[in-house]
Protein backbone atom coordinates (compact mmCIF):
# COMPACT_ATOMS: atom_id res chain seq x y z
CA UNK A 1 0.00 0.00 0.00
CA UNK A 2 2.87 2.31 0.86
CA UNK A 3 4.38 1.47 -2.51
CA UNK A 4 1.24 2.44 -4.41
CA UNK A 5 0.86 5.67 -2.43
CA UNK A 6 4.48 6.49 -3.20
CA UNK A 7 3.83 5.65 -6.83
CA UNK A 8 0.97 8.15 -6.85
CA UNK A 9 3.20 10.86 -5.46
CA UNK A 10 2.62 10.69 -1.70
CA UNK A 11 6.08 10.85 -0.17
CA UNK A 12 7.36 7.60 1.32
CA UNK A 13 8.21 9.26 4.66
CA UNK A 14 4.57 10.24 5.24
CA UNK A 15 3.33 6.69 5.60
CA UNK A 16 4.75 4.50 8.32
CA UNK A 17 3.95 0.98 9.41
CA UNK A 18 4.83 -0.40 12.79
CA UNK A 19 3.90 -3.15 15.20
CA UNK A 20 4.13 -2.10 18.84
CA UNK A 21 2.97 -4.07 21.83
CA UNK A 22 1.21 -2.23 24.68
CA UNK A 23 4.22 -3.20 26.80
CA UNK A 24 6.71 -1.53 24.46
CA UNK A 25 6.49 2.06 25.67
CA UNK A 26 10.03 2.94 24.68
CA UNK A 27 9.58 1.55 21.18
CA UNK A 28 6.37 3.60 20.86
CA UNK A 29 8.20 6.77 21.84
CA UNK A 30 11.03 6.03 19.42
CA UNK A 31 8.69 5.33 16.51
CA UNK A 32 6.51 8.39 17.13
CA UNK A 33 9.59 10.59 17.42
CA UNK A 34 10.99 9.23 14.16
CA UNK A 35 7.66 9.68 12.37
CA UNK A 36 7.15 13.25 13.56
CA UNK A 37 10.69 14.21 12.59
CA UNK A 38 10.32 12.74 9.11
CA UNK A 39 6.89 14.24 8.53
CA UNK A 40 7.78 17.71 9.78
CA UNK A 41 10.81 17.66 7.47
CA UNK A 42 8.41 17.15 4.57
CA UNK A 43 6.10 20.03 5.55
CA UNK A 44 2.32 20.11 5.19
CA UNK A 45 0.67 17.52 2.95
CA UNK A 46 -1.28 18.87 -0.03
CA UNK A 47 -2.09 15.55 -1.65
CA UNK A 48 -5.16 13.40 -0.95
CA UNK A 49 -6.57 16.20 1.20
CA UNK A 50 -10.28 16.85 0.90
CA UNK A 51 -11.36 20.46 0.89
CA UNK A 52 -14.73 20.63 2.64
CA UNK A 53 -15.28 24.32 2.01
Amino acid at each position, binding site marked *: *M*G*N*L*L*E*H*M*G*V*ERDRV*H*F*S*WISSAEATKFVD*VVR*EISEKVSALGPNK*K*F*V*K*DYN
Partner: protein
Amino acid sequence: MDTCIKKIRALAADLLDKGEVERVIGFAKGTIPMATSPIAIGSKQEIEKLVFNSTCGLNLANFATKQKGKIAIIAKGCDSRNIVTHIVENQIKRDQIYIIGVPCNGMVDKFKIAALFKDEITQFEEAGDTLTVSSVSQTQTLSKQDVLRENCRLCTHRNPVLYDVLAAELVEEQVLENPFPDVDRIEALDSDAKWEHFENLTKNCIRCYACKNACPLCYCPTCFVDEAGPQWVGKGQNKTDVDTFHFLRAFHCAGRCTDCGACVEACPMGINVRDFTRKLNKDALELFGWEAGLDLTKRPPLDAYSPQDPNDFIK
Protein backbone atom coordinates in the same frame (compact mmCIF):
# COMPACT_ATOMS: atom_id res chain seq x y z
CA MET B 1 -9.88 -15.47 -36.82
CA ASP B 2 -12.42 -16.90 -39.31
CA THR B 3 -11.48 -20.50 -38.72
CA CYS B 4 -11.39 -19.82 -35.01
CA ILE B 5 -15.00 -18.58 -34.88
CA LYS B 6 -16.15 -21.57 -36.93
CA LYS B 7 -14.50 -23.86 -34.41
CA ILE B 8 -15.96 -21.88 -31.49
CA ARG B 9 -19.46 -22.12 -32.96
CA ALA B 10 -19.08 -25.83 -33.69
CA LEU B 11 -17.83 -26.53 -30.17
CA ALA B 12 -20.58 -24.41 -28.62
CA ALA B 13 -23.29 -26.03 -30.73
CA ASP B 14 -22.03 -29.47 -29.80
CA LEU B 15 -21.99 -28.67 -26.08
CA LEU B 16 -25.52 -27.26 -26.15
CA ASP B 17 -26.73 -30.14 -28.32
CA LYS B 18 -25.46 -32.77 -25.95
CA GLY B 19 -26.83 -30.82 -23.00
CA GLU B 20 -23.37 -30.71 -21.42
CA VAL B 21 -23.78 -27.04 -20.63
CA GLU B 22 -26.80 -24.82 -20.16
CA ARG B 23 -25.31 -21.67 -21.59
CA VAL B 24 -22.34 -20.59 -23.62
CA ILE B 25 -20.84 -17.22 -22.73
CA GLY B 26 -19.13 -15.50 -25.61
CA PHE B 27 -19.00 -12.33 -27.65
CA ALA B 28 -21.68 -11.02 -30.00
CA LYS B 29 -21.48 -8.28 -32.58
CA GLY B 30 -21.99 -4.87 -31.02
CA THR B 31 -24.50 -2.27 -32.10
CA ILE B 32 -21.80 0.04 -33.43
CA PRO B 33 -18.76 -0.76 -35.56
CA MET B 34 -15.59 -1.89 -33.77
CA ALA B 35 -17.55 -3.14 -30.76
CA THR B 36 -18.58 -6.47 -29.34
CA SER B 37 -20.73 -7.22 -26.34
CA PRO B 38 -20.85 -10.24 -24.06
CA ILE B 39 -23.68 -12.66 -24.73
CA ALA B 40 -25.03 -15.82 -23.06
CA ILE B 41 -26.39 -18.33 -25.55
CA GLY B 42 -28.83 -21.00 -24.46
CA SER B 43 -29.87 -22.64 -27.69
CA LYS B 44 -28.34 -23.86 -30.92
CA GLN B 45 -30.46 -21.44 -32.98
CA GLU B 46 -28.54 -18.49 -31.57
CA ILE B 47 -25.11 -19.91 -32.32
CA GLU B 48 -24.52 -17.63 -35.32
CA LYS B 49 -24.58 -14.67 -32.95
CA LEU B 50 -21.18 -15.68 -31.58
CA VAL B 51 -18.25 -13.74 -32.96
CA PHE B 52 -14.58 -13.48 -32.14
CA ASN B 53 -12.27 -10.77 -33.43
CA SER B 54 -9.78 -8.17 -32.28
CA THR B 55 -12.43 -6.03 -30.61
CA CYS B 56 -13.33 -8.63 -27.97
CA GLY B 57 -11.45 -6.71 -25.31
CA LEU B 58 -13.79 -7.27 -22.37
CA ASN B 59 -13.14 -10.07 -19.91
CA LEU B 60 -15.78 -12.81 -20.00
CA ALA B 61 -14.63 -14.25 -16.67
CA ASN B 62 -16.68 -11.38 -15.23
CA PHE B 63 -19.84 -13.26 -16.25
CA ALA B 64 -18.76 -16.73 -15.15
CA THR B 65 -19.88 -16.35 -11.54
CA LYS B 66 -23.38 -16.57 -10.02
CA GLN B 67 -24.53 -18.86 -12.85
CA LYS B 68 -26.85 -21.78 -12.23
CA GLY B 69 -25.90 -25.07 -13.87
CA LYS B 70 -22.87 -25.72 -15.99
CA ILE B 71 -21.66 -23.07 -18.41
CA ALA B 72 -19.18 -22.95 -21.22
CA ILE B 73 -17.06 -19.85 -21.63
CA ILE B 74 -14.80 -18.54 -24.36
CA ALA B 75 -11.51 -17.59 -22.79
CA LYS B 76 -8.49 -15.68 -24.05
CA GLY B 77 -5.27 -15.92 -22.06
CA CYS B 78 -6.31 -13.22 -19.62
CA ASP B 79 -9.89 -14.48 -19.26
CA SER B 80 -8.55 -17.93 -18.37
CA ARG B 81 -6.30 -16.42 -15.71
CA ASN B 82 -9.29 -14.67 -14.19
CA ILE B 83 -11.23 -17.94 -14.27
CA VAL B 84 -8.36 -19.52 -12.34
CA THR B 85 -8.59 -16.62 -9.86
CA HIS B 86 -12.35 -17.18 -9.54
CA ILE B 87 -11.80 -20.87 -8.83
CA VAL B 88 -9.06 -20.13 -6.27
CA GLU B 89 -11.33 -17.55 -4.60
CA ASN B 90 -14.26 -19.99 -4.55
CA GLN B 91 -16.47 -17.94 -6.84
CA ILE B 92 -17.01 -20.88 -9.15
CA LYS B 93 -16.18 -24.58 -9.14
CA ARG B 94 -13.91 -26.07 -11.77
CA ASP B 95 -16.47 -28.71 -12.75
CA GLN B 96 -19.13 -26.03 -13.25
CA ILE B 97 -17.31 -24.43 -16.11
CA TYR B 98 -16.24 -25.71 -19.51
CA ILE B 99 -13.49 -23.54 -20.93
CA ILE B 100 -13.16 -23.03 -24.68
CA GLY B 101 -9.65 -21.61 -24.86
CA VAL B 102 -8.75 -19.13 -27.56
CA PRO B 103 -5.06 -18.32 -28.01
CA CYS B 104 -4.99 -14.58 -28.51
CA ASN B 105 -2.95 -12.26 -30.69
CA GLY B 106 -3.99 -9.17 -28.82
CA MET B 107 -6.92 -6.81 -29.01
CA VAL B 108 -7.05 -3.42 -30.67
CA ASP B 109 -7.16 -0.07 -28.93
CA LYS B 110 -10.38 1.56 -30.11
CA PHE B 111 -9.38 5.02 -28.90
CA LYS B 112 -6.14 4.77 -30.85
CA ILE B 113 -8.00 3.85 -34.04
CA ALA B 114 -10.69 6.47 -33.53
CA ALA B 115 -7.97 9.11 -33.12
CA LEU B 116 -6.78 8.39 -36.67
CA PHE B 117 -10.12 9.54 -38.06
CA LYS B 118 -11.73 12.94 -38.05
CA ASP B 119 -15.26 11.58 -38.25
CA GLU B 120 -17.12 8.61 -36.87
CA ILE B 121 -16.04 5.09 -37.81
CA THR B 122 -18.68 3.26 -39.81
CA GLN B 123 -16.99 0.00 -40.71
CA PHE B 124 -14.34 -2.30 -39.29
CA GLU B 125 -13.05 -5.33 -41.18
CA GLU B 126 -10.30 -7.67 -40.13
CA ALA B 127 -8.25 -10.14 -42.15
CA GLY B 128 -5.31 -11.64 -40.29
CA ASP B 129 -3.06 -8.79 -39.26
CA THR B 130 -4.65 -6.25 -41.58
CA LEU B 131 -7.50 -4.05 -40.46
CA THR B 132 -9.64 -2.05 -42.87
CA VAL B 133 -11.36 0.76 -41.08
CA SER B 134 -13.72 3.21 -42.75
CA SER B 135 -15.44 6.39 -41.77
CA VAL B 136 -17.79 8.43 -43.96
CA SER B 137 -14.93 10.42 -45.49
CA GLN B 138 -12.09 7.90 -45.73
CA THR B 139 -10.87 4.30 -45.54
CA GLN B 140 -7.58 3.33 -43.94
CA THR B 141 -5.72 0.05 -43.95
CA LEU B 142 -3.98 -0.50 -40.64
CA SER B 143 -1.65 -3.10 -39.28
CA LYS B 144 -3.11 -4.64 -36.14
CA GLN B 145 0.32 -4.57 -34.48
CA ASP B 146 0.34 -0.77 -34.70
CA VAL B 147 -2.96 -0.32 -32.90
CA LEU B 148 -2.70 -3.02 -30.23
CA ARG B 149 -3.80 -2.14 -26.73
CA GLU B 150 -0.91 -1.42 -24.38
CA ASN B 151 -1.71 -4.37 -22.11
CA CYS B 152 -1.76 -6.72 -25.12
CA ARG B 153 1.54 -5.35 -26.32
CA LEU B 154 3.04 -6.23 -22.94
CA CYS B 155 1.19 -9.53 -22.53
CA THR B 156 3.21 -12.64 -21.76
CA HIS B 157 0.28 -15.02 -21.37
CA ARG B 158 -1.53 -15.04 -24.68
CA ASN B 159 -2.42 -18.70 -24.48
CA PRO B 160 -5.11 -19.80 -22.03
CA VAL B 161 -3.55 -21.28 -18.89
CA LEU B 162 -6.57 -23.50 -18.20
CA TYR B 163 -8.92 -24.95 -20.81
CA ASP B 164 -10.96 -27.99 -21.72
CA VAL B 165 -10.64 -27.52 -25.45
CA LEU B 166 -8.78 -25.15 -27.74
CA ALA B 167 -10.44 -23.29 -30.62
CA ALA B 168 -7.13 -22.62 -32.40
CA GLU B 169 -3.46 -23.55 -32.38
CA LEU B 170 -1.44 -22.20 -29.46
CA VAL B 171 0.47 -19.02 -30.28
CA GLU B 172 4.03 -18.16 -29.41
CA GLU B 173 4.39 -16.30 -26.10
CA GLN B 174 6.25 -13.02 -26.04
CA VAL B 175 9.41 -12.78 -23.99
CA LEU B 176 9.89 -9.23 -22.78
CA GLU B 177 13.11 -7.78 -21.54
CA ASN B 178 11.21 -5.37 -19.34
CA PRO B 179 7.54 -6.16 -18.77
CA PHE B 180 6.90 -2.86 -16.95
CA PRO B 181 8.31 0.04 -19.00
CA ASP B 182 5.21 2.14 -18.27
CA VAL B 183 5.59 1.73 -14.48
CA ASP B 184 9.29 2.54 -14.70
CA ARG B 185 8.51 5.77 -16.52
CA ILE B 186 6.27 6.93 -13.66
CA GLU B 187 8.67 5.68 -10.99
CA ALA B 188 11.42 7.82 -12.45
CA LEU B 189 9.44 10.99 -11.71
CA ASP B 190 9.68 12.90 -8.42
CA SER B 191 6.77 12.93 -5.96
CA ASP B 192 5.12 16.09 -7.26
CA ALA B 193 5.39 14.99 -10.89
CA LYS B 194 3.93 11.59 -9.99
CA TRP B 195 1.02 13.25 -8.25
CA GLU B 196 0.48 15.55 -11.23
CA HIS B 197 0.50 12.55 -13.55
CA PHE B 198 -2.29 10.86 -11.62
CA GLU B 199 -4.21 14.11 -11.13
CA ASN B 200 -4.22 14.60 -14.90
CA LEU B 201 -5.03 10.95 -15.48
CA THR B 202 -8.23 11.02 -13.43
CA LYS B 203 -9.36 14.57 -14.13
CA ASN B 204 -11.93 13.43 -16.69
CA CYS B 205 -13.31 10.62 -14.53
CA ILE B 206 -17.10 10.79 -14.30
CA ARG B 207 -17.39 8.11 -11.59
CA CYS B 208 -19.49 5.87 -13.84
CA TYR B 209 -17.76 2.83 -12.30
CA ALA B 210 -17.51 1.14 -15.71
CA CYS B 211 -13.93 0.13 -14.79
CA LYS B 212 -15.00 -1.72 -11.67
CA ASN B 213 -18.09 -3.19 -13.33
CA ALA B 214 -16.03 -4.58 -16.21
CA CYS B 215 -13.47 -6.05 -13.82
CA PRO B 216 -13.86 -9.76 -12.99
CA LEU B 217 -12.14 -9.18 -9.66
CA CYS B 218 -14.88 -6.82 -8.44
CA TYR B 219 -17.55 -9.19 -7.21
CA CYS B 220 -18.25 -7.97 -3.67
CA PRO B 221 -22.02 -7.95 -2.96
CA THR B 222 -21.72 -4.32 -1.86
CA CYS B 223 -18.80 -2.35 -3.22
CA PHE B 224 -17.01 0.01 -0.84
CA VAL B 225 -18.11 2.92 -3.04
CA ASP B 226 -21.79 2.07 -2.46
CA GLU B 227 -21.47 1.45 1.25
CA ALA B 228 -23.39 4.05 3.29
CA GLY B 229 -22.53 3.07 6.86
CA PRO B 230 -19.68 3.83 7.10
CA GLN B 231 -19.34 5.82 3.94
CA TRP B 232 -15.74 5.08 2.95
CA VAL B 233 -15.59 7.57 0.12
CA GLY B 234 -17.67 10.57 -0.96
CA LYS B 235 -19.90 9.95 -3.93
CA GLY B 236 -19.50 13.18 -5.86
CA GLN B 237 -16.96 14.62 -8.24
CA ASN B 238 -14.68 15.94 -5.52
CA LYS B 239 -11.15 15.32 -6.77
CA THR B 240 -9.99 13.67 -3.56
CA ASP B 241 -12.99 11.32 -3.64
CA VAL B 242 -12.26 10.44 -7.26
CA ASP B 243 -8.61 9.74 -6.39
CA THR B 244 -9.63 7.72 -3.33
CA PHE B 245 -11.94 5.60 -5.46
CA HIS B 246 -9.21 4.86 -8.00
CA PHE B 247 -6.59 4.21 -5.35
CA LEU B 248 -8.78 1.78 -3.40
CA ARG B 249 -10.22 0.08 -6.46
CA ALA B 250 -6.68 -0.59 -7.62
CA PHE B 251 -5.52 -1.82 -4.25
CA HIS B 252 -8.37 -4.31 -4.07
CA CYS B 253 -6.83 -5.84 -7.19
CA ALA B 254 -3.35 -6.17 -5.67
CA GLY B 255 -1.87 -9.56 -6.51
CA ARG B 256 -5.07 -10.52 -8.35
CA CYS B 257 -4.99 -8.33 -11.45
CA THR B 258 -4.18 -10.15 -14.70
CA ASP B 259 -3.83 -6.90 -16.66
CA CYS B 260 -6.65 -7.99 -18.99
CA GLY B 261 -7.40 -4.36 -19.80
CA ALA B 262 -11.19 -4.65 -19.40
CA CYS B 263 -11.17 -1.57 -17.14
CA VAL B 264 -9.53 0.55 -19.80
CA GLU B 265 -11.69 -1.02 -22.51
CA ALA B 266 -14.84 -0.07 -20.61
CA CYS B 267 -13.81 3.47 -19.71
CA PRO B 268 -15.88 5.93 -21.76
CA MET B 269 -13.42 8.73 -21.03
CA GLY B 270 -10.33 6.91 -22.27
CA ILE B 271 -8.58 6.94 -18.89
CA ASN B 272 -5.70 4.50 -18.63
CA VAL B 273 -6.72 3.21 -15.19
CA ARG B 274 -4.10 0.50 -15.61
CA ASP B 275 -1.52 3.04 -14.44
CA PHE B 276 -2.71 2.21 -10.91
CA THR B 277 -2.91 -1.58 -11.15
CA ARG B 278 0.29 -1.97 -13.15
CA LYS B 279 2.37 -0.76 -10.22
CA LEU B 280 0.77 -3.43 -8.03
CA ASN B 281 1.44 -6.10 -10.65
CA LYS B 282 5.07 -5.07 -10.74
CA ASP B 283 5.28 -5.19 -6.94
CA ALA B 284 3.59 -8.59 -6.86
CA LEU B 285 6.18 -9.92 -9.27
CA GLU B 286 9.19 -8.30 -7.60
CA LEU B 287 8.24 -8.84 -3.96
CA PHE B 288 6.39 -12.14 -4.18
CA GLY B 289 7.47 -13.60 -7.54
CA TRP B 290 3.78 -13.73 -8.31
CA GLU B 291 1.68 -13.39 -11.42
CA ALA B 292 -2.05 -13.78 -10.87
CA GLY B 293 -4.15 -16.62 -12.20
CA LEU B 294 -1.48 -19.09 -13.26
CA ASP B 295 -1.89 -21.80 -10.64
CA LEU B 296 -5.06 -23.38 -9.23
CA THR B 297 -3.23 -24.56 -6.12
CA LYS B 298 -1.82 -21.24 -4.92
CA ARG B 299 -3.53 -18.44 -2.98
CA PRO B 300 -2.82 -14.81 -3.97
CA PRO B 301 0.12 -13.34 -2.00
CA LEU B 302 -1.94 -10.92 0.12
CA ASP B 303 -4.26 -13.77 1.05
CA ALA B 304 -1.60 -16.07 2.47
CA TYR B 305 1.13 -15.73 5.06
CA SER B 306 4.64 -16.89 4.51
CA PRO B 307 7.64 -16.29 6.77
CA GLN B 308 9.46 -15.24 3.60
CA ASP B 309 7.07 -12.30 3.01
CA PRO B 310 8.95 -9.00 2.76
CA ASN B 311 8.89 -7.29 6.15
CA ASP B 312 11.25 -4.38 5.83
CA PHE B 313 8.48 -1.75 5.67
CA ILE B 314 7.51 -2.47 9.30
CA LYS B 315 9.52 -0.71 11.97
